[in-house]
């Protein structure tokens, strides 16, 4: 192949997506591309405090980011899962944990034994009590997972809750150290190549022209390149995910520093609670068809636990994605490519998935449609799976106390989701994935947490004697409790491991 010319990459926008992309390309493909990022200080970052999935740890590791440094800089806390309150019925609650139910080692998944006990009327606790991550979360305890897979303290994973407005600057310093170039300026026009129709250059307010071979659209909701300029159609999913607004309002932390994010169902949507080291993020995600902005604002003000730190701020969005995330010589990453509400903390995961796919399929100057199509297949799969998983949260409800809940309870859902629900209800089976996010335990957590109970179980779970399963499950529950009690308090662990510098 010989020497190939470097691809000149221009990243459009400097939020979380933009700086993650710039840092990853500069680190992982230094011989294949140059990276220039254009951003304007006049435009703020869209993020409102971020809850993440465990995959972010791989990303940070690949970039050589030190965990404690990163956590201190972004005022981060640990996250063992997401708590859902009031979803299937008012008063219900469960945690979707990052980790297994049971020891996660058997040939037959733990939830089949759990179902068998339930069906037989044998003594059995809620399934969360057989999860290390759930038990630690409710106890506000944390320590890093044990590397020995034989120990029950190895059966959980973790992510972070951090301040998104601090993450982008942190990554900027990483990216610039790796050689990415930053240009300050407001983009006023995008120049297309007359012959090919590809993107040729960005034009800035200053009159500067930034040419490139490959443009990464990280411009957020504006979708400056792939949407506004290349007019790639947007697939609107709001009939399944009707929430189209969020009102965010940070406050002082008054209660415990929980190692988990909470998502509490509200009259016309749900409310997040994300505890950081220095404050708690709150927000109400709602559907403007079912509640007014003013009522939503009053609801969040009434719900937060401590003194507000800022005025409530309203964001608008539509659930869905671009028909293709990669078009011509433009790859969209983050909100420019699509939006799914942060119910399962997938925003940064989707950014990361797009960056990883781009790195694996990184093009030459002359872009091959084969690489582009494979990228789009991978990204569509990620979006569509997460879409189904989110719809499940709304649809698996018995609530009809407001018009909103009545709508989502009775709406028709995508066939791809209905098949999954039927399969679980029938006998606890989870559709198997080989790649992608949200594997078996995640689906089990949400199904069981939202009252979709299997009518049967895998026959192989009938093999052990009933009393052996009863005593085995109880022994496991006690062991998880004992190990949890030995762990430090979440805040104590943070103060020792990664305390933030005093807030200015």
């Amino acid at each position: 192949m010989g020497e190939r010319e470097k691809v000149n990459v221009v990243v459009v926008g400097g939020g979380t997506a933009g700086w993650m992309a710039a840092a990853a390309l500069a680190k992982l493909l230094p011989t294949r591309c140059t990276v220039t990022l254009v951003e304007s200080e006049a435009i703020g970052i869209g993020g409102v405090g971020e809850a993440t999935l465990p995959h972010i740890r791989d990303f940070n590791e690949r970039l050589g980011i030190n965990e404690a440094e990163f956590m201190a800089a972004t005022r981060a806390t640990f996250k063992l899962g997401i708590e859902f309150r009031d979803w299937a019925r008012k008063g219900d609650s469960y945690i979707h944990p990052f980790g297994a139910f049971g020891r996660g080692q058997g040939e037959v998944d733990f939830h089949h034994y759990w179902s068998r006990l339930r069906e037989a009327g044998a003594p059995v606790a809620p399934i969360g009590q057989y999860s290390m991550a759930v038990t630690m979360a409710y106890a506000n305890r944390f320590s890093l997972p044990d590397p020995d897979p034989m120990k029950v303290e190895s059966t959980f994973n973790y992510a972070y809750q951090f301040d998104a407005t601090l993450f982008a600057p942190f990554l900027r310093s990483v990216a610039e150290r790796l050689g990415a170039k930053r240009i300050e300026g407001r983009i006023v026009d995008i120049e297309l190549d007359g012959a090919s129709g590809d993107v040729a250059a960005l034009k800035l307010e200053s009159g500067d022209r930034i040419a490139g071979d490959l443009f990464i659209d990280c411009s957020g909701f504006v979708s400056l390149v792939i949407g506004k300029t290349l007019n790639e159609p947007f697939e609107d999913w709001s009939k399944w995910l009707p929430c189209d607004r969020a009102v965010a309002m940070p406050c002082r932390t008054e209660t415990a520093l929980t190692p988990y994010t909470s998502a509490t169902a509200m009259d016309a949507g749900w409310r997040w609670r994300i505890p950081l080291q220095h404050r708690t993020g709150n927000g109400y995600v709602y559907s403007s068809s079912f509640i007014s902005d003013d009522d939503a604002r009053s609801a969040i003000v009434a719900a937060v636990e401590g003194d507000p730190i800022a005025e409530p701020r309203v964001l608008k969005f539509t659930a869905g994605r671009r028909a293709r995330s990669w078009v011509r010589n433009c790859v969209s990453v983050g909100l420019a490519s699509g939006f799914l509400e942060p119910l399962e903390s997938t925003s940064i995961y989707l950014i990361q998935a797009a960056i990883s796919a781009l790195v694996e399929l990184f093009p030459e100057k002359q872009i091959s449609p084969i690489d582009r199509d494979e990228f789009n297949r991978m990204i569509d799969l990620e979006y569509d799976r997460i879409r189904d998983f989110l719809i499940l949260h709304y649809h698996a409800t018995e609530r009809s106390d407001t018009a909103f809940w009545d709508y989502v309870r009775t709406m028709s859902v995508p066939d791809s989701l209905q098949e999954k629900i039927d399969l679980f209800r029938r006998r606890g089976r989870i559709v198997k994935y080989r790649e992608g996010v949200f594997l078996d335990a995640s689906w089990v957590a949400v199904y069981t947490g939202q009252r979709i109970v299997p009518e049967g179980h895998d026959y192989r779970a009938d093999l052990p004697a009933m009393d052996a399963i009863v005593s085995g499950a109880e022994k496991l529950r006690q062991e998880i409790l004992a190990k949890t009690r030995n762990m430090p308090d979440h805040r104590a662990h943070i103060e020792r491991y990664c305390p933030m510098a005093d807030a200015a």
Partner: protein
Amino acid sequence: MSGKMQSVAVAGGGIVAWSAAAALRRRLPMLDVVVISSTPPPNALADRCANTLPSIVEFHADLGLSDEDTIIRAQSGMRLGTRFIGWSEGVEDYVHAYGSYGAAVGGIPFNQLWLREGQPSAYDCYSLSAELGRLVRFAGGGSAEAQIGYGLRLTIDRYHELMRAYALHLGATEHPGEVVDVELREDGFVDAARLSDGAQVQADLFVDCAGPEAAIRSRVDDAFELWSKWLLCDRVDTKAGGEESLLDEVVAKPSGWSSTYARAY
């Protein structure tokens, strides 16, 4: 839901049927399993082909069968892969080997590193299984960097004896006979298999392992997806013979291919 499944009838008397019966009794011992056994027809290649993939090793582990049973007592040999001869122009042969090829470096898959270096040697040179196979040597396990994979080359008669004995030991029962017809229920499900001696075998579930004629399955419907436009071969001529080897040779011929299924080594 109606009542639980209680009885299963497995049709076929070769290694396919006995493997199915053993697995069902091992993992779902609450089921009554009867094997309607007859000699597999000549075109039931799955009952006659002695070559298996590495997955059989896991299958044996799942059944609770040891290497002593499946290799030593059943007189099986190891096979590390298949050597394809004359399949592409300018390439004398290549080995499709089991186990790993090369090793990833820093998360970069090995095949990408191999491409970057301009394919310095044939791809199978980076497989421990392929090299051992060419040298007719064997060592179990391998290392983290070079993992060996192997399937078994069965001695069909011995393996058949083993699987039958094991299935019976696990509680399967045998009903010798050939399925000649089936009784269908009103809803189109199979109610019973009728055998050549006039006997009927009823069951809740039928597993048809009786070869391509599919005496039971074909009575439910005769839908068959034909793939012969892509896979043209439709005849096989078999002869006894073959040498001891760890690789099987598949030689391209003017109208298909021929293989020497090596004897168990």
